[in-house]
C-alpha cells in the first residue's frame, strides 16, 4: 500500500525529466525511483535524487510517517563521486524500506541538511561529515562527533592513508 503511494510521490519529483531511468545498465545510474527485490536487497524502494531534490524527497517520506534509520556515505573514487545514502523505514506493519541516495562530485561534496526535517539526522550527518568530509549545508553544528574534535582527516575516503 504505502509502497505504491510513496513510489508515486517520489516518482512525481522526476516528472519534468521524462520517464525514470529504471534501466540500471549504465553506471552510474541516473536519477529516478527503482523498486528492489526485498528478498535479496533488504529494501523496497531505491530513489536516486539530485541534491536539490533531496529536501523534497525527504519531506515526502516525513509526511508519510517514515522514521529515519541512518545516513551514510559511499566514496565512489573511480567515478569521482560521493554518494550519500539515507535509509528510512516505517513503524507500522505496512513494511516499506526506502533508500534515498544522492550523488555529489568528490571535490565539492555539499548536500543540504535534512536535520530541519528529521532532528535525528543531526548526528548521522555529523558522522558522515567525519568519515567522508561531506558538508551538509545548513547543518547547525557540523563539528566532529565520533572523531576527535580537532580531526581534519576523513578515514572512510578510499584514498585515506593512516
Amino acid at each position: 500500500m504505502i509502497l505504491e503511494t510513496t513510489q508515486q510521490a517520489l516518482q512525481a519529483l522526476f516528472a519534468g525529466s521524462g520517464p525514470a531511468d529504471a534501466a540500471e545498465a549504465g553506471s552510474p545510474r541516473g536519477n529516478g525511483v527503482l523498486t528492489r527485490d526485498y528478498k535479496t536487497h533488504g529494501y523496497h524502494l531505491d530513489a536516486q535524487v539530485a541534491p536539490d531534490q533531496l529536501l523534497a524527497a525527504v519531506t515526502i517520506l516525513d509526511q508519510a510517517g517514515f522514521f529515519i534509520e541512518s545516513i551514510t556515505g559511499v566514496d565512489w573514487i573511480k567515478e569521482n563521486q560521493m554518494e550519500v545514502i539515507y535509509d528510512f523505514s516505517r513503524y507500522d506493519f505496512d513494511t516499506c524500506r526506502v533508500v534515498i541516495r544522492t550523488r555529489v562530485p568528490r571535490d565539492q561534496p555539499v548536500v543540504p541538511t535534512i536535520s530541519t526535517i528529521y532532528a535525528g539526522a543531526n548526528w548521522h550527518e555529523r558522522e558522515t561529515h567525519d568519515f567522508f568530509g561531506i558538508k551538509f549545508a545548513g547543518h547547525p553544528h557540523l563539528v566532529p562527533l565520533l572523531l576527535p574534535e580537532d580531526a581534519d582527516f576523513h578515514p572512510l575516503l578510499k584514498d585515506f592513508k593512516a
Partner: protein
Amino acid sequence: MSAPIQLRPDETFILNVGPQHPATHGVLRVKMEMDGEYIVKSETVLGYIHRMHEKMGENRTYAQYLPNLSRLDYLGALGYTHGHVLAIERAAGIEVPERAEYIRAITVELNRVASHLFWFGAFVMDLGGFSPLMYAIQDREHILDMLEAVTGARLTYCYYRFGGLYNDVDDDFIEAARRFIPRMRKSLKKYAALVTGNIIFQKRLEGIAPVSAEMCRKYGATGPVARGSGINFDVRKNEPYSVYPEFDFDIPVYHECDSMARYKVRMDEMEQSLRIIEQGLEKLPAGPIMAEKKPKNIKLPVGDFYQAVETARGSFGIRIVSDGDKNAYRLKLRSPTYSNMHLFDEACEGMLIMDALAFMGSLDLVIPEMDR
C-alpha cells in the same frame, strides 16, 4: 516534575557528566548546562571509544569481519553477529539449515535475556539500589554458562558462520536451557515484587522523561525506547527474519511514554524471550547445522544490501555495498543506541539531573555500540 525555567544565562553553569562518570556506563560525555539541579541544555559528546569498525569492514574479508560484530555491543553480542551473517546470506543467497536457524534464535534470545538482565541491574543501580544488580548477575551467569558451553566464549561470541553455526548444541545445553526457564520466571516474579512494585522506584520513574512517539520517529528511536512510547515496532514482527515467524510471542508495548514504560517493556520482553526459547527447544529439528552449498571464500554480487535485526537495544541495521570483491566496498553499521541516545539532548531539557540520569539509564546505553 519539570518546572518551568526562566533565568538569565549568567546564572547557569556547565556540568561535565563523563567521560568517566558512574551514570554513563562507559566513556560517554554529556555537557550539561545547569541551573542548579535543572538541566537547561545538554550536548552529548561521543567518540571516546570509537574504533572505526566500518573501515575494518572494508579491509577484512567477510569471514574475518565476524569477530568485530561481537565487539559492538558486549552485552547482547549475538544479535549483532546474527545481523551480519543474515546480511551476507541474503546477499550471497546461502540457504541456512533449519536447525541452525533455530539454534541461532534460541541463543539470540538467551543473549537478549542476559542483556536485559544486566540492564535491569545497572538501571536499578543508577537509581541507587544495589542488590538487584547482584541478583540479576546471578541469573545472567546461568545464561553465560550455557552460552559458553556452546559458543566457547562468555561475552564476545564468534559463533555464527555464513550458512550455519560453528558447532552444534548438545543435550546438556538443551537440558540446561529447559531448567533455566522456570528458574528465570521465578526470578522475574522476585524482581517484580522487589523493584517494580516498590513505591520509591515507581515515584522515580512514573511520568518522568516523556518521549513522544513523534519524537521517536524524528530521531529514529527503535527497540524498547520506541515501544515504551506506544510504537508497536519490532523487527522480528515487522520484517520477520530467521525462524521468528514460527514462534508465538507478543511484543510488549506501553503507551505511557515515560521511563517506567521503557522499564516495563524490557521486563516483559524477557518473558517473551523465554517463550521463544521454550518453543525453540520444543521445535528444534534435527539435521545439519551448516549449509551444504557454500562457497569457501565468500564474494558478494555487486550491489547494495541491507539487513535489519532486532537486538536487545533496538533495530540494528547492516548495509553492505559490494563491488564484487571478497571484502565489502562499504559497510555501514546502524546501531540502535546511537539513535536512541540522540533524543536525550532534546528530551532532557528542563529535567532534574537525577531524573535525566535515570532517563539515560532507561535508554539502555552500551557505549562501544554507539561509538562503533
